[in-house]
């Protein structure tokens, strides 16, 4: 059924004039997942940004590239396979580390600071946090009905070991004044037009002062790739990628809720729609609230959709599970269309913000097709949903998603 839909979607795409044979090849090479809008199969192709291996290119300018499924074979995502997401096309082609500074300032601090990369490395305790960075709209392309935006499949996410100073230590040095309710973060990238609102985000003071909220100077033991925010980005573990400001250049505590476009009008979900614990109270209204924590989710990384097995052949299903920072309690797997579920074996625990690998062994039953479903539950008891909680921006898609294999 699902495979048929997938093939239909591809068939639909080939009927469109923009789907040239060359594009078809590239789309096939990209091994795009099923369930996307038909047009996405004509656009999605492998593309390579400087400093990166080929990723699934959705848009060139601004660059939006997601990781192929193969990037998730390990619980830490290689830097050169880490997804890339920008809203606006004014991206500096390079950043001169000698000139680059983070300005810590505004009314909310006693001593404004201009911090160089060396200052950030030398003057502060360096903290390492293993954490998933996931775009709020990861899996937006699988929304039913489809909603506008970048039609992300499964790979607008990654997990890395981030290392750098705590934001709270930086603010302590600047002498943060009492009364700050939020801290505003800006990056060196910006819009193509001066009339377009710059991408600026705030976080509630409580999240900023969390010991795991850091300015990452390193990613998996190496400098950040340019397109992941070189030389420094904000790490807000457990919260969606929208807060993880890239190319960070300013940190400003404020005593009133920040009213920029990207807080007031974007990245919002209907109030009360999702069971998140940490909310953004100073930005919330009766109708909508900023997206905050990631919802519990999982991914089957192996076998691939449509993989072939012989009747009776042993199969090891593998995948990842993650949530908003409470940690994964269990992953259960069904290989019989959801009729029965058994516990998968959880792999190494790299911390409550990191991908948790899992495996599940079973015997291929057939002949015919067999579906594998995985469902993660976090330590709060929250679990993935069977039916999409639809919202117009296509956020928080954690629907249990079958992988169908073919047994002959």
């Amino acid at each position, binding site marked *: 059924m699902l495979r048929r839909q997938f093939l239909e979607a591809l068939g639909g795409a080939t009927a*469109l*004039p*923009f789907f*040239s044979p060359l594009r078809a090849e590239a789309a096939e090479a990209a091994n795009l997942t099923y369930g996307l*809008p*038909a*047009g*996405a199969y*004509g*656009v*999605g192709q492998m*593309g390579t940004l*400087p*400093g990166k291996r080929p990723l699934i290119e*959705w*848009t*060139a*300018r*601004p*660059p939006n590239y997601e990781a192929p499924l193969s990037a998730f074979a390990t619980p830490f995502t290689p830097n050169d396979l880490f997804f890339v997401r920008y809203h*606006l*096309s004014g*991206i500096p*082609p*390079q950043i001169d580390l000698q000139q680059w500074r983070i300005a810590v300032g505004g009314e909310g601090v006693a001593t404004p600071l201009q911090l160089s990369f060396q200052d950030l490395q030398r003057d502060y305790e360096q903290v390492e946090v293993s954490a998933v960075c996931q775009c709020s709209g990861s899996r937006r392309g699988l929304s039913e*009905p*489809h909603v*506008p*935006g*970048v*039609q992300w499949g499964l790979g607008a996410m990654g997990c890395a070991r981030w290392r750098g100073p705590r934001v709270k230590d930086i603010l302590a040095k600047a002498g943060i004044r009492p009364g700050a309710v939020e801290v505003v973060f800006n990056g060196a990238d910006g*819009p*193509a*037009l001066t*009339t*377009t*609102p710059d991408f600026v985000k705030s976080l509630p003071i409580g999240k900023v002062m969390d010991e795991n909220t850091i300015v990452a100077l390193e990613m998996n033991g190496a400098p950040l790739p340019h397109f992941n925010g070189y030389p420094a980005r904000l790490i807000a573990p457990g919260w969606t990628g929208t807060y993880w400001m890239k190319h960070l250049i300013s940190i400003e505590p404020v005593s009133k809720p920040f009213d920029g*476009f990207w807080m007031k*009008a974007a990245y919002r979900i209907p109030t009360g729609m999702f069971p998140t614990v940490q909310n953004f109270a100073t930005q919330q209204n009766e109708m909508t609230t900023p997206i905050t924590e990631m919802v519990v989710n999982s991914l089957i990384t192996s076998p691939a959709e449509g993989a072939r097995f012989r009747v009776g052949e042993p199969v090891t299903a593998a995948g990842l599970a993650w949530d908003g920072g409470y940690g994964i309690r269990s992953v259960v797997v069904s290989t019989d269309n959801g009729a029965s579920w058994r516990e998968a074996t959880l792999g190494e625990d790299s911390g409550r913000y990191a991908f948790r690998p899992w495996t599940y062994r079973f015997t291929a039953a057939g002949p015919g097709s067999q579906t594998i479903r995985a469902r993660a539950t976090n330590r709060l008891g929250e679990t993935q949903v069977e039916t999409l909680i639809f919202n117009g921006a296509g956020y928080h898609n954690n629907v249990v998603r079958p992988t169908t294999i073919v047994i002959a």
Partner: protein
Amino acid sequence: MKNLWKFVLVLATAAPAAIAAERVVALKDAPGKDTVEATCSGCHSLDYIPLNSPFLDQQGWTAEVNKMINAYGAPIPQAEAAKAIAYLAANYGKP
């Protein structure tokens, strides 16, 4: 590896690599295509259009174009916006 990266950066500054390397998105030939190319491509590549198809109806494409004008400050005159919407709905709209 470091040297290669530097080399890439030098290229990036010598010529606007982001523009030079951008694939050409051939939109469907139909009335209004020129308007769409001229009004949309200043801020973003045109791949956004086929990517977001074919599931938006006339109202959906109207909302998208209006978002570009009202939220993102795109200076698109009303007549041009109407042409762009008509093209998008006819060629990349819900069948």
